């Protein structure tokens, strides 16, 4: 009991001394700008070879030389549990003044009025860029326009770009006698040969994280449903937004121009299922997404579908026993599908990487805070700062015009400006998305036929569209 009594007294003292007295905020008279840098959050490397960047500290130091009245504070924030973190901070009005976030994750909050429409500010000159008349001109236009929210505005500026590609083991390819394919038919032939030679042709993830499945569906749909997508978009410029908007999709479903029973829609499902013969066993149950990477580096799989973020990791790997190459998604031709379109193959990615910055309305409502926040954001995104920042991390490519050269990133650069007009990338509702994924899994496992699967999806599609239309008051 003595120990208990002593610990009670001790803990009470600690409780009183340490529990109180901490208050966030600057104690001097400086204007404090809080920044969450997402993947660019500065952190000293834990050891040599650790992939991290401290460059944001340099940028803050440079800025403080020009504006000694401003204090830049980088908050550590959270990459996981973003929704809970963001929602609670917004409710408490404590969101960092510059918030690193994936733009599409905050689009759902637009109706709540939490985020500042940056369009008017993008028209202003960026004084840190010589001769600049409009801040928006420092970004690549196509990729930036593609990150407009469903309401047509830009809520986050992106300093980097990401692109995906097929990484292949050059030694295995040489041994089996195959070359990087250009068309889907060649791609299937290459995988068939690799399979016969005893390799897993490609490591694929359709388990815990189904991003890869979404990429596959989108990029195949983009090619196979080319004519339909053009019709749905009514001839308007392709590069705007993600291509098919939610409203256009709802209208197309309501008027019968987009249906799960359309033969070209069913063709997308068939092509993915045919392709799945070459995935590793258990691809539907992958729990750890890095398992895909491990199959490739350990030479069990001849290919993996990954992105620019894997390059540095592979290049820093002293135990990698092979050379690798990267090729883009092969075009689907008439040889593989009667629905093959123009042969233009778009990419998966764009200005959707890790360097996207939004400003909460709690900041923009305070004119002084907004003035400095905007000024720092302009400074941060200026080519002399943003390009070295992106290069220092080494996972992505700058979305800022300026001098940049990195031979490792070359394979990923050819698709920029031609991003997929995927309808599926804009899920109708969250429930629909879940149902879609589960139905696809059942189809892949042969639990249901293609006809049964598309019957289910047609019903779900109609249900989701009715829900959206009644919510948004759309009538077609």
């Amino acid at each position, binding site marked *: *009991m003595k120990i*208990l009594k002593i*610990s*009670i007294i001790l*803990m*009470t003292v*600690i*409780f009183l001394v*340490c*529990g*109180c007295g*901490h*208050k*966030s905020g600057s104690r001097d008279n400086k204007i404090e700008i*809080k920044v969450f840098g997402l*993947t660019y*959050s500065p*952190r*000293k*490397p*834990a*050891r*040599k*070879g*650790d*992939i*991290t960047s401290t460059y944001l500290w340099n940028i803050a130091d440079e800025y403080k030389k020009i504006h000694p009245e401003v204090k830049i504070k980088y*908050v*550590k*924030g*959270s*990459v*996981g*549990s973003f929704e*809970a*973190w963001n*929602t*609670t*901070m917004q*409710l*408490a009005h*404590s969101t*960092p003044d510059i918030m690193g976030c994936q733009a599409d994750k905050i689009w759902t909050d637009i109706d709540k009025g939490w985020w500042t429409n940056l369009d008017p500010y993008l028209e202003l000159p960026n004084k840190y860029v010589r001769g600049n008349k409009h801040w928006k001109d420092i970004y690549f236009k196509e990729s930036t326009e593609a990150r407009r929210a469903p309401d047509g505005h830009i809520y986050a500026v992106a300093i980097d770009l990401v692109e995906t590609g097929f990484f292949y083991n050059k030694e295995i390819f040489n041994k089996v006698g195959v070359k990087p394919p250009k068309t889907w038919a060649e791609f299937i032939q290459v995988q068939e040969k690799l399979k016969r030679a005893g390799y897993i042709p490609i490591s694929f993830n359709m388990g815990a994280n189904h991003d890869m499945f979404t990429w596959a569906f989108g990029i195949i749909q983009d090619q196979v449903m080319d004519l339909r997508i053009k019709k749905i978009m009514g001839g308007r410029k392709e590069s705007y937004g993600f291509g098919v908007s939610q409203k256009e999709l709802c209208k197309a479903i309501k008027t019968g121009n987009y249906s799960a029973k359309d033969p070209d829609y069913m063709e997308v499902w068939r092509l993915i299922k045919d392709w799945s013969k070459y995935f590793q066993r258990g691809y539907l149950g992958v729990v750890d997404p*890095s398992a895909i*990477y*491990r199959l490739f*580096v*350990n030479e069990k799989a001849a290919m993996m579908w990954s*992105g620019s*973020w894997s390059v540095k*990791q592979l290049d*820093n*790997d*002293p*135990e*990698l026993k092979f050379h690798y190459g990267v090729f883009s998604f092969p075009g689907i031709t008439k040889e593989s599908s009667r629905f093959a379109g123009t042969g233009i193959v778009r990419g998966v990615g764009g200005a959707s*990487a*890790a360097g996207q910055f939004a400003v909460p309305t709690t900041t923009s409502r305070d004119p002084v805070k907004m003035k400095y926040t905007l000024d720092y954001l302009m400074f941060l995104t200026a080519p002399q700062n943003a390009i070295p920042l992106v290069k220092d991390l080494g*996972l992505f490519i700058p979305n800022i015009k300026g001098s940049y050269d990195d031979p490792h990133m070359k394979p990923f650069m050819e698709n920029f400006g031609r991003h997929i007009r995927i309808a599926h990338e804009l899920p109708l509702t969250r429930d629909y998305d879940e149902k879609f994924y589960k139905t696809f899994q059942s189809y892949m496992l042969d639990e249901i036929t293609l006809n049964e699967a598309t019957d289910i999806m047609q019903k779900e599609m109609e249900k989701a569209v009715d829900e959206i239309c009644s919510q948004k008051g759309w009538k077609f």
Partner: protein
Amino acid sequence: MHQKISNMVSIGILTIIALLTLYPFILMIFTAFKTNPQFEHMLWLPTIPMHWENFSGVWREISPYIWNSIIVSGSTVVGMLILSSISAFVFARYNFPGKSFLFIAIISLLMIPGVLTLIPSFMLMVKLHLTNSLWGMIMPYIAGGQVMAIFILRSFFANIPEEIFESARIDGASEAKNFLHIALPLCKPMLGTIAVMNILATWNEYVWPLVIISTNDELRTLPLGLMAFAGTFYTNWGPLFAGYTLAALPLLIMFAFTMKYFIRGITSGAIKM
């Protein structure tokens, strides 16, 4: 001979089970010494050279947060034990109007998942100006931890024969003395079990500290500090697991000292429903 073989088979099976149980912990330690390439090429086994610098690197990152975690978990467990033992004693030994209703109201809170109360609890903390402070973690943890503790302790206090308290009263003991010198010493194993369970929960909590300490990094707790090594596109496995290992050490030390209470508490029915 037959007995010997049977024993050997049992020992073999038990060893395999023990290894399987311990393997996640062993794997954590193996991984703590690896670089990312070592981790990717040899997931399950240890690798050479061992990278001790993972520990120094991660220590630099998380050491400020260990003290925060100790304060939060320590204060919570003391506050929770004081309040819950008093409440449980009252519920067990006294009769007052609405006693059953109040008790059912309290234990019915066990049925509400924490995630459902995340936003309302957070709004309450905002109104009380407790965000970005350690109080914002300690107070709700004490409140939340009490429910289970009251439930367990009340059953135990209720089972202590009334005659013991009666004799003490005859000898002139006050109600406070009855509680402090009779009831509490008798339920030490229970208190130990509840304390260990509570510390485990608060030490490992991630979401609540994340939302409460949203922008004041100096007040982050260990689980938040460790997340600096995990990212959407890239995770530094070695330092992350070195961090997990360091974070587990205080708990291991605590278990070493409280194991006897914990086991005694479990065997005497502390966490039997």
